[in-house]
């Protein structure tokens, strides 16, 4: 029999482990961050091309939902997981609002805001990992990317970018690029967790009646 903790983790977080849904939107975010270099005002959604890229990314992501249903089946999550997720989201939003209030009020570097946000999100990810018996790699990758880009900026290690800033002189939005790439990498990792859990069950072959 498979590890019961892993069984519980996959069953309770099944809908969240469908990581391929996040890959196309993540790629779209990353592409838009690169396109922003040439867009007016270096905005990530100011040109028709950027809007098209985002729309295609979102639709392509949604197309993976029927794939998961056909391949791995369907799970309805327990009510307590929905309540817990809503509570975690509420806590994160509250911390985020307070922290950004501090950053803006004290005119702290914007990258410090990102580091704090990433750390708060990382804390919630770790708390969830303890509760559900497994780490959701998409969320962990988000937290690492946001915190990492913030730290690199604070240390002045981002190319062509003033220390503490999140956009380069040429208009590249580093946080957008990092977040988009995190969606791609984290989504693939979560998908692999799901596939490997199911595959190891196939190899084990279950037991006879």
């Amino acid at each position, binding site marked *: 029999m498979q590890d019961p903790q892993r069984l519980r*983790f996959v*069953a309770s977080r099944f809908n969240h482990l469908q990581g391929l849904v996040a890959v196309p939107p993540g790629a779209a975010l990353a592409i838009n961050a690169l396109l922003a270099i040439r867009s007016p005002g270096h905005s990530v959604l100011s040109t028709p091309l950027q809007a098209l890229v985002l729309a295609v990314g979102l639709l392509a992501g949604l197309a993976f939902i029927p794939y998961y249903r056909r391949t791995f*089946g369907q799970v309805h999550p*327990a009510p307590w997981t929905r309540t817990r997720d809503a509570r975690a989201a509420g806590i994160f939003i509250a911390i985020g609002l307070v922290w950004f209030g501090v950053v803006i009020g004290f005119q702290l570097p914007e990258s410090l805001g990102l580091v704090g946000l990433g750390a708060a999100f990382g804390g919630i990810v770790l708390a969830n990992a303890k509760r559900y018996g497994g780490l959701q790699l998409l969320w962990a990758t988000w937290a690492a990317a946001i915190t990492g880009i913030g730290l690199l900026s604070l240390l002045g290690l981002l190319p062509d970018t003033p220390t503490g800033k999140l956009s380069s002189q040429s208009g590249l939005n580093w946080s957008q690029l990092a977040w988009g790439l995190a969606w791609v990498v984290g989504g693939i990792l979560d998908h692999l967790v799901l596939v490997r859990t*199911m595959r*190891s069950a196939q190899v084990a072959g*279950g037991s*006879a*009646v």
Partner: protein
Amino acid sequence: MAAPFEELASLDKLVHEPARLAILTALSACDSADFLFLQRLTGLSKGNLSSHLAKLEAGGLVQVTKRFIGKTPNTSMALTPAGRAAIQAHWQRIEQLRTQTSRWRPEDQPPPEHA
């Protein structure tokens, strides 16, 4: 006191059988799951899984709901309150036995009675 190894034999076999234990453990972590998910998660064949589910349903631990989504048949499984209590009690018992086993010593076992 019986050795913990002897108490293992007294565990509820309806729950303790590995495939059924995997099914019940997975269902305890969600509201319901469909047949395909349980089949992929446990690695059982359709026939084996159906047989185990029938036993669990007959034992009152699992509720099986069959319906159509459009023209596609869909079978979903959920734990009954008795099933939820049974799997929770089972894992608690396993944990107790694990603790007892770690403390057990051969000299604690009473000598066998000679004929």
